[in-house]
């Protein structure tokens, strides 16, 4: 028996319609409207714990922390899953869409902000308000969200503050005092100008890629990123324009490697080859440079982060979020608290270049030890810890500064740095595009 062409067409149409209907299902978002979990006082159940690229280097440490927790709470079973760094956020997005976020999840600053902003994380201040005192105040405050009151949406985990790393020999060659590195953004640019004038093209001061400096520099200089209502970008100011003009001028004078404008260059490689005065502002980099370029490490100086009028420093914070509708809020909260407690964080810092967000952890003597004042790695640890205790840490990039906004601003600034448009036009156009993206985002 055979089917008529009409039947075949009808069949094909039916299949296509079914697929279209099924594809329409992809329109529904998941998780955001979920009911928030409430504690019952019963620490039990099976919970999932997801970390970001900690295996295999830290397998023993993390498993040890889990085993100890399970021994303390026999009614809890922790299933640990570790996900590679590449595509971590994409996986979180997919899981959030599917309503399949882990109970306890390791979040970086951007994933925390986006998931928190979309109401997918539990308010840990409500779950466990008393725990706030255990953390460095600035770190706990980091996990509040604009427009969400006093809620705190993640437990602070390990943090890395921004520091300044520099090649002392190159600084001296440029006629600058290696013992007096720059302390403000403006002074940093002055140093760069001197370096460009003296280096003869043999080395450069820093990377031109605006993405690496924005919006941090603007925040440090007191440029308002958002208006008072936090519903429009407001960085189109004389200070922002002056910053772009300075970058353009320095680029033209050769203070930065030409290709570094496009982030095509590797800063570690350039610094390690002795072609860059200022290296990455991360304490972890100091350890890397010691291993990969010992000669340059010997000439590396470390100082507090370059700041601005507000005295802010940049901070990269990892946190542990709790899935808003977790079935086991008590177990999840107790576990997150366990992982982020003082002793566990100090132990972690012995294995990795990280700093505890936990006040007791940060008070550990190893973070105050400056050694003989000559070893860059020891100094970096002490300087970073000192900054964490005292610096204002609320310099977080606002959640409205998304990847798309950052890219759009960077593109306009790149054009200005290359001289394709003037600085004022670049900042104005950048703000227009950023506001358009923001408006499109709030229409969801």
């Amino acid at each position, binding site marked *: 028996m055979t089917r008529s062409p009409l039947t075949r067409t009808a069949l094909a149409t039916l299949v296509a319609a079914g*697929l279209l209907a099924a594809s329409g299902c992809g329109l529904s978002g998941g998780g955001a409207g979920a009911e928030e979990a409430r504690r019952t006082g019963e620490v039990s159940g099976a919970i999932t714990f997801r970390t970001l690229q900690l295996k295999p280097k830290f397998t023993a440490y993390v498993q040890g922390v889990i085993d100890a927790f399970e021994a303390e709470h026999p009614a809890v079973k922790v299933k640990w899953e570790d996900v590679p760094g590449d595509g971590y*956020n994409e996986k979180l997005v997919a899981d959030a869409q599917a309503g399949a976020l882990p109970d306890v999840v390791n979040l970086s600053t951007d*994933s925390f902000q986006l998931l928190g902003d979309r109401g997918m994380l539990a308010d840990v201040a409500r779950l466990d308000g008393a725990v706030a005192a255990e953390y460095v105040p600035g770190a706990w405050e980091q996990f509040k969200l604009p427009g969400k009151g006093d809620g705190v949406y993640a437990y602070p985990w390990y943090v890395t503050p921004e520091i300044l790393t520099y090649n002392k020999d190159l600084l001296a060659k440029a006629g600058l005092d290696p013992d007096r590195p720059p302390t403000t953004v403006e002074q940093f640019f002055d140093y760069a100008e001197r370096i460009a004038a003296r280096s003869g093209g043999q080395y450069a001061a820093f990377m031109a890629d605006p993405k690496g400096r924005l919006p941090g520099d603007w925040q440090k200089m007191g440029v308002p990123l958002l208006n008072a209502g936090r519903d429009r970008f407001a960085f189109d100011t004389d200070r922002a324009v002056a910053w772009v003009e300075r970058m353009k001028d320095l680029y033209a004078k050769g203070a930065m490697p030409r290709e570094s404008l*496009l982030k*095509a260059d590797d800063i570690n490689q350039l610094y390690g080859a002795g072609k860059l005065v200022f290296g990455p502002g991360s304490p972890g980099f100091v350890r890397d440079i010691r291993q990969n370029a010992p000669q340059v490490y010997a000439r590396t100086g470390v100082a507090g982060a370059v700041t601005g009028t507000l005295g802010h420093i940049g901070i990269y914070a990892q946190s542990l979020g709790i899935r808003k509708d977790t079935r086991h809020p008590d177990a999840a909260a107790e576990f997150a608290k366990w992982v982020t407690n003082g002793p566990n964080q100090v132990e972690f810092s012995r294995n990795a270049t990280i700093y505890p967000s936990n006040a007791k952890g940060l008070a550990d003597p190893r973070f105050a030890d400056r050694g003989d004042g000559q070893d860059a790695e020891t100094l970096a640890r002490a300087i970073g810890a000192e900054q964490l205790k005292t610096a204002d840490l609320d310099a977080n990039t606002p959640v409205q500064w998304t990847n*798309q906004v950052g890219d759009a601003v960077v593109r306009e600034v790149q054009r200005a740095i290359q001289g394709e448009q003037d600085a004022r036009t670049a900042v104005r156009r950048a703000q227009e595009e950023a506001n358009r993206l923001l408006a499109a985002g709030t229409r*969801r």
Partner: protein
Amino acid sequence: MGTDPGLVHRRWWTPYLFLAPGLLMVALFSLWPFLNTVVLSFTDARVLSGGHFVGLDNYGRALADPDFWTAARNSVLYLLVVVPCLVLLPLALAVLVQAKVPGIGLFRSAFYTPVIASAVVVGLIWQWVLRSDGLVNTVFQALGVVSEPVPFLTDSTLLLFSAMLVTVWKGLGYYMVFYLAALGNVPASLHEAAALDGAGPLRRFFSITIPQVKPMMLLVGTLSAVSALRVFTEIYILGGESGGPGGGARTLPFLIRQAGLGFAGETGYACAISLLLFLLTLAFSLLGHRLSRGDEE
């Protein structure tokens, strides 16, 4: 002659039963995502939130966006430059390495090496060749050809052409293999007869080789056109994540990635640009098909 009882009892759905596993895979991994893209392109869907139907808004926005037109122009320019190069140069290469001489396998392998190298590795190698303090600029400056380094990677137009160079370099060996297969099917008797009639190598190439490999040239043209419209890695590696200074070297796939990536990604808008790229690709594929049919007729 009796009728085969197997044929009498055959059900209409029997062939579909055999096709089912394959069709299911195609439906699941090709058709469904495609249809989903079509549906999403008419919505304001974002990465973490469901969308609402917005009609042709996304398409209107794309067509009114100067960035879209810059990317579309770059994609078409890429195609117009890369396709002729990838149709002709691998053919010339295949003719050269077709000769049966000792050690020719070594040359064939050497020309094929870039094909198996990862696009990222190839991009990084070319980055070091083309950067302002790279090999080419160092040689040019040493020879006095230029006084200032040529901004191969920091000028949008030059960056686009640099990326084209990488695409062509990487594609040469790949399409050379196609042509080697086609050249192997050209009857030797045709060349022998032409040689007897006094035709030289050049004449034989244009009068015998080209007509014989023309279907393969059309295939290579279509394949390389589709690849050219999908180019992303070369631009990304050479020009960074902005797509060149100010994003001036972005192609359509680059724009799709930027629009749809990250937590704030505009899925609906990215899908609309994807559909426009699909239509552009379809148009060029149909053009190739038409040329191929015209040739057959």
